[in-house]
Every structure is written in structure tokens, then in C-alpha cells.
């Protein structure tokens, strides 16, 4: 670098906009400067987010140039269906395009990428990667769409890949001052793939001179092979076949094309065992550590599910490694593990819902944010990942709700993707602040505590939210779960269930109140017919 000043350049991805790329139909995600943990349900497109970022920064998909990987299934299925349907209608749509926009933080190193050529018309450095219909194929295209009934897919043959800066200039991977490193620990396609992958990372780790040395030694070895007497004999025999097989001279040699460099002939070993044969967990952790170690500060790391194939203690070590090495780098991690979430910090979480909306906890009210910072985090993850959630205020409520659900639907709530989560009742609203923007249908089951006015005031903010339901009983005489249970059932039934012989309702109630969990467990386990309080029945509908 000719510039000697102390400017340390870190490329930071501030925002991703993806359109029609696989599951990402129209997605906008904001990222934080250092650590980002994307949390979301399976099939939401978490890994597709990482894939899209990597594609935008490297032009590569699955480690190969996108030109070789172009296929119609890169397009969002719904978009394709809509497009094909529109061709049969009176108002046909233009051929769909995939757009991946990467908005970068302004930096003197990135001025060349700066401009307003992006869908937000924002003046900042950035990259637009697109797969678009190439209009020079207009003639062919018009033929293709003449019979829309026969069309099943996008005519990808007429598409081109465009890679440009926000200044509208064509770019190559050289024009982007840093690269991204995608570490996909969740799948290892096949052994040679894994090997190649690690070699890629190793290549970055090695100094240029070391790489050249390796390459030279490899070439020498090849030359040696050809000068070997046995090889010479074989070639002599082959050349003697001249005339019988072909008129030309047949011989063997080592592949000396540019593609056959040392990377393809070399394998990585771990304690003298080929790495591809080592445990998957070990492979992952090596991949991640090597990658974090090798690249300089200006790099974006995309790590997919670091917890995969790792034992708890190994994960602990790895996560510590990631958080130690992440200083001055931008990390984007997807995870299913609340452990990863807790260790790396809940403040960095990006919640990505199945409706493809994302929120960061940074958008939450600051006291709510502080609350979750202190929370172990497990409940948060459960809420985010649930299709539907029922929030209850204690273990006994949880058991009763489970029982009510079982009675109603003949299965446990979790089998239908409904998660019953016990939350401190004071925190109900904080959880609703997460489920509201994510559109997770959420039911709150709460005691009325004898004050209906303050209860309805408390949830006033969510009154008009169709995804959120607040269930409580209007009878202020029965303030909590236990009197509600008693109200719904006879003294006899409950005595039988608890194996007691209380003479009065009051005595029973006193027993229930001081043995809440035991009673709830008895209710949960009983095979006897038992009525559930009305507000709980409403909650499990």
C-alpha cells in the first residue's frame, strides 16, 4: 500500500437487499458492524442469506463461478409461478430478475464503488449482483413465450449475470477490496469437496512465497514422474502401438494444464489422517479456526451453524475462539443453538422470520433490550423459532395449558408447532414486542389478579394486533389459576384427582395454592375427565 497513514480498513456490510433469490423473495436486512447472529426457523432462508452475501461479494456459488452454476432454480419459486401464470393472462410480466444488493459502510477505500445506482437510491459504496434477462435475446424470447402452456420455468439460457458497483461500473472480484469467507459447517458435500474447501482456506493462510514454493515443488515432482524409467518404458510401449490404434504417437503424461495445480493433487492431513476422514466436528472447527486466522482484518466472515457436529465442550472452545478473533472483523453467523446465542451476545441477534421480515434486537425499546441481555436467552430463541406461541406465567399454568391443548386437539402443542413458554408475567409485553414484528401468532394466558382495568390498559398497545390474543377470565372473584380450576370443576372431582378429602372448597383452595405445581402435575397426569377454565380453553383454540 502506497498510503502510509494509519487508516485501518474494515469493510462493513450495512444492508442486504435480495430479490427473487431462492427463498428470499424480497428481503432487506440490516447488519451491525461486528457480530451478527441470524436466528430463524428451518427453511426460512437463513443459509440463503449467507449464500446471497457470498455470491454478491465473490460472484461464486458453491465455490464455483456463478456462470457455471446458473440454473432456473436459483429463482424464487413463487416469482417463477407468478411470471408463468402472467404469461397466460392478458397482462404478462417482464422476465423476473434476481437482484442482490450489498450496501457497504462508506470508507475512503471504497469510493470507487460509491454511487446511487441501487434500489434505495442511496449514495454509498456498494455492489449489485443481478441475474437478468439479456435483451439481445429478445427475438428468441418472443418465440419461447408464444406457447405459455408449455412453459415450466425461466428461460435461463437467455439470462446474463451482471456484477456492478453502485457507481454502475462493471466489477470483477479484483475491484472489491476484500473477500468474504463462507464457512458452511452444516453440510459437507463429499470428501474431495471438503478437502478442496480446506485447501482454499489454507491457501489464504499461507504467505504468497510459501504458496509459490508449494507449487514449484509440486511441478518438480511431476517432472520427476515423467523422467522415471518405468514411466519411460510405458511410453515406449505406447508409442509402439502407433498405426494399430492411431496414426499418431500415444503417450501418458501428467495433466499440466493450469487447472491441474498443486491444490488438486494434495490433501490435508490431521495427525497423518486425511482430514476428509477426520470427524465432521473436527473438520468444522478446523475450517472455522483456519479461516478466522488467515484473512486480514478486512474480511466478512459468514459462518453457518458453527454448532454442527460439535460436542458441547468443543463448541465452547470454538465459540470462544470466534469471539476472541472477531475483533475488527464483521461476522455473520446463523445458528440454532441458544448456547451460541448466549455466548456471543443476544444484542447481536437478527431475528429472521418465515415471512422474511427481519428485526434486530437493537430496534427494541431499550429497557426491553436490557431485559433480554440479562435473560439466559433460551425462551427468546423458543419464541422466535415457534410457529405459534402460548405465553404463560408459571410452571403450573404451563401444565394446565398443555393439558387443555391435549384435551382439545388430542396431541401435545409442540407437535403442532405451538410452543408453550413460561415467562415472568411482568415480561409478557417484552416478548410481545418480539412476536409482533415477526408476526408470530402469540397467546398470552394471564391471571386477572382482580384488576381488569389495569390489565386491559397493560395490553392496550396490542389491542389491534390480529396475531396477538390476551386470554384471562373476567371474574375478579377468581384472581388466579387455582380458584379458576375450582370454579370449573366440582370439589369431588378435584379431591379425586389430588387424592384428598377436603370438606370445603376453601380448604381445597388453600391446599392447591400452597402446592401449585404438584396439583398442576396431578391435573396433567389424570385420566379423569376434567373441565378446563374457559379462558384457557379459549387460549388453546
Amino acid at each position, binding site marked *: 500500500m*502506497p*498510503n*502510509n497513514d494509519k487508516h485501518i480498513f474494515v469493510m462493513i456490510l450495512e444492508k442486504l437487499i435480495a430479490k427473487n433469490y431462492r427463498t428470499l423473495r424480497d428481503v432487506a436486512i440490516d447488519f451491525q458492524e461486528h457480530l451478527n447472529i441470524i436466528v430463524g426457523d428451518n427453511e426460512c432462508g437463513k443459509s440463503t442469506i449467507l449464500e446471497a452475501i457470498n455470491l454478491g461479494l465473490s460472484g461464486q456459488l458453491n465455490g464455483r463461478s456463478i456462470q457455471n452454476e446458473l440454473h432456473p432454480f436459483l429463482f424464487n419459486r413463487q416469482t417463477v409461478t407468478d411470471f408463468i401464470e402472467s404469461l397466460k393472462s392478458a397482462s404478462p410480466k417482464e422476465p423476473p430478475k434476481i437482484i442482490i444488493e450489498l450496501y457497504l459502510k462508506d470508507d*475512503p477505500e471504497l*469510493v*470507487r464503488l*460509491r*454511487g*446511487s*445506482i441501487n434500489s434505495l*437510491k442511496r*449514495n454509498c459504496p456498494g455492489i449489485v449482483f443481478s441475474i437478468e434477462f439479456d435483451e439481445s435475446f429478445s427475438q428468441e424470447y418472443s418465440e419461447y413465450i408464444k406457447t405459455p402452456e408449455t412453459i415450466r420455468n425461466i428461460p435461463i439460457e437467455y439470462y446474463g449475470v451482471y456484477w*456492478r458497483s*453502485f*457507481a*454502475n*461500473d462493471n466489477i470483477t472480484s479484483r475491484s472489491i477490496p476484500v473477500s468474504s469467507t463462507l464457512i458452511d459447517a452444516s453440510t459437507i458435500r463429499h470428501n474431495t469437496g471438503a478437502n478442496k474447501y480446506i485447501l482454499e482456506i489454507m491457501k489464504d493462510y499461507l504467505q504468497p512465497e510459501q504458496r509459490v514454493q508449494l507449487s514449484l515443488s509440486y511441478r518438480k515432482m511431476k517432472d520427476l514422474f515423467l523422467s522415471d524409467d518405468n514411466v519411460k518404458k510405458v511410453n515406449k510401449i505406447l508409442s509402439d502401438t502407433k498405426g494399430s490404434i492411431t496414426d499418431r504417437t500415444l503417450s501418458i503424461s501428467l495433466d499440466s494444464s493450469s487447472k491441474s495445480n498443486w491444490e488438486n493433487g494434495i490433501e490435508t492431513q490431521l495427525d497423518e489422517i486425511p482430514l476428509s476422514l477426520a470427524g465432521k466436528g473436527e473438520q468444522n472447527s478446523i475450517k472455522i479456526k483456519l479461516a478466522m486466522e488467515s484473512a486480514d482484518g478486512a474480511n466478512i466472515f459468514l459462518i453457518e451453524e458453527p454448532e454442527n457436529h460439535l460436542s458441547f465442550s468443543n463448541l465452547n472452545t470454538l465459540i470462544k475462539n470466534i469471539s476472541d478473533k472477531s475483533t475488527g472483523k464483521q461476522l455473520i453467523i446463523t445458528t440454532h443453538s441458544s448456547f451460541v446465542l448466549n455466548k456471543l451476545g443476544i444484542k447481536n441477534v437478527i431475528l429472521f422470520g418465515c415471512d422474511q421480515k427481519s428485526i434486530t434486537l437493537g430496534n427494541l425499546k431499550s429497557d426491553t433490550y436490557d431485559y433480554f441481555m440479562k435473560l439466559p436467552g433460551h425462551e427468546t430463541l423458543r419464541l422466535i423459532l415457534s410457529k405459534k406461541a402460548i405465553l404463560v406465567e408459571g410452571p403450573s399454568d404451563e401444565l394446565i395449558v398443555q393439558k387443555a391443548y391435549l384435551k382439545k386437539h388430542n396431541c401435545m402443542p409442540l407437535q403442532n408447532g405451538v410452543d408453550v413458554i413460561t415467562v415472568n408475567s411482568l415480561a409478557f409485553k417484552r416478548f410481545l414486542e418480539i412476536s409482533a414484528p415477526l408476526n408470530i401468532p402469540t397467546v398470552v394466558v394471564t391471571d386477572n389478579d382482580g384488576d381488569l382495568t389495569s390489565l386491559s390498559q397493560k395490553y392496550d398497545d396490542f389491542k389491534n394486533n390480529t396475531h396477538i390474543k390476551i386470554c384471562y377470565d373476567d371474574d375478579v372473584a377468581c384472581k388466579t389459576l387455582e380458584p379458576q380450576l375450582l370454579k370449573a370443576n366440582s370439589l369431588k372431582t378435584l379431591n379425586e384427582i389430588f387424592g384428598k378429602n377436603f370438606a370445603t372448597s376453601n380448604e381445597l383452595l388453600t391446599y392447591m395454592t400452597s402446592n401449585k405445581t404438584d396439583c398442576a402435575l396431578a391435573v396433567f397426569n389424570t385420566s379423569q375427565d376434567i373441565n378446563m377454565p374457559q379462558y384457557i380453553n379459549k387460549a388453546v383454540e
Partner: protein
Amino acid sequence: MNQVIIAAAGSGKTTRIVTEILKAPTKKSLIVTYTLNNVNEIRQKFYHLNRHIPSTVTVISWFSFLLRDVVRPYQNYIYEKRIGSIAFIDGRSAKFVNKSNFKKYFLSEEDKVYTDKISELGLICNEKSNGLVIDRLEDLYDHIYIDEVQDLAGYDLDVIELLLSSRIGITLVGDHRQATFQTNFSNRNKQYSGVKIIDKFHDWEKQKRCQVEYTQNCYRCNQVICNLADALYADLPKTNSENNTSSGHDGVFIVRSDKIHKYIQEYSPKLLRYNVKTDCYGYENNTINWGDSKGLTFDRVLILPHGPLKKALKAGDLSQAASSAAKLYVAITRARFSVAFVFDDQCPLQNVVHYEL
């Protein structure tokens, strides 16, 4: 302070620019020039003087600069679809289209921007984006050198004016005496086209936007040749030759048409004609046009005159060839040692030697 350097032919202006840039290697410098030939020449000069082009230096042609750094980065303030390239226009494009018809006025059918309007479009991009174009240029470059500035015309001059008032240091280098090309033939700034661009430079100097400096040393031509060239522009400072080498045949000569063959055999001059219609006495295939010889250097040239030059030679007054002064100036100043004219009459010009008479 921004500078305009009027560099006499052979004064080593490319060397000067490149040396200046190499002295300040951390500065982000851009060199823009109209012709691709000159882009290559500048690049070669870097390789010659420095073995490589520093990573802080960009050498680019004028149209590429306008398209890449001026029009495209903020073009969506006025037009969404990417402007892919330029449409070369010799003359004026879309003459009868009103500016309100944006697309037709600026762009060809294939969304290429017309070369006579690209500067105008760039100015609009900057205006509509509230100066973002200039902001970006200021962050990209510390200094912009525009070489062969005399080739610029029309709205190009407005772009330069905008650059002159930016934070970027600007050096304009050129020689209006050699205004043989023109980037475009727009009506805009017509009063400053060709050799008259010098008036614009002086206007800018009056407005304190820049300083105008004449470099009078010529490292190529000997003094007799310099004097002959200077005679074409009597009002300008005289050129001082730094070439004192003698070759045994130095100065300005008149060669009769029947002696051409012998002269060529004896001295191997480069033949320079006005244009394809000029009588070349059988040497058509070995000549180049005056205008095309720009930037080249030869030991000797043999100039094939067109009508106006013949009259001027007969009168002994080169200013009579003023209509093609720029091209003639270029042709004369190619030679290190000798300039000869094919001419069958007496020439009363001073210091002219009639060959073999």
C-alpha cells in the same frame, strides 16, 4: 493553485506530468486525455520512467472518464436504465430533438450516450444529485491532469469549469496551436473552439480559477524550425530550442518536385501531406496526414503542401495558411533537424535553403 500549461510542441509535457506525479506517490492522481494513442503514450512514459504505473494513478480517456466517473454513478437521478457506452458522433446528434425529450436528445436507440452531449449529461447528473458527482470525484482524486486539453470543446469546458472550483487540484496541459482534433462539435462554447480555447484559459485566469503558464523550451526541434513554427502564431511567446545538435542537414528547405526522389534517397524524411487529396508525387503509400502526425517525432520531414500553403510559401508569409495553422504547426514541429517543403517556385522566407539550386 490550478494550472494551465501551454506547452510548445516538443517541450516534454508528458514527461513533465509523469515526473510530477511520481514525485508525490501518495496522491491519488487521474490523467485524462482525449485520444487513446495519447493514453498509451502516457502509460508507456510511466513504464519507462518508473517500471510500473503506481496504484494511485489512473490513466483514462476523456469519454471513459465522463461515462465512468461523471455520468453513471448518479445517472438514476435522471435515467434508470444503465447507459452502456458512447455513440460516436461526427458533427451534431439528434439536431431537431428538443432537450425536453430527454431520451432522444441524449441517447441513441441502444441507450448509448452521444459523444457531443455526454458532458452536458454529466453536468445534469451533478446538478440533479445536488453535487454528488463532484463529491465523489473529490474523494476519488487529489489531482486531475487533463492532457491535450485543446481537444476539448462544447460542454467539456463547463465540466472543466466545475472541476476548477472543486477541492481537486487541476492541471490542464495542452497547446492550442495544435488544436487539430475536437471531442465534439456542440454549439456550446463555440466562441472558444479550436485555437480560440486560449481565450477561455485567459478568462479563467482573470476569474482567479487558474494560472496560465507558457513553456517555451523545445527539446525536439532546432531553433530554425522553432522560428518557422512560431511564425504561424506571431502573437505568442517565442520558442527557445534546446536542441543544438547538428546533423549536417539542418534547418528549413525547399525541394523542387523533380528532385523529390533524390532528396528522399539522400535524407529519408518522413512525408507529411495535408490530406488524401494532396498531390504526393507517387509516394501516397508512404505519407501520413499532418493532423495524424501529432505526438510523433522524426529526424526529418518532407511536407507536401496543399493550395493555401503553396500561396503562403510564394508570399513568404506563413500566416496566409492560417486556415490550417494548427495542422501545419503540428507537421513542422515533428522534425528534429530538417523541415522541407515540396515547392516549385522561389520562396522568399528567411533562412530557407533551396535544395540543389
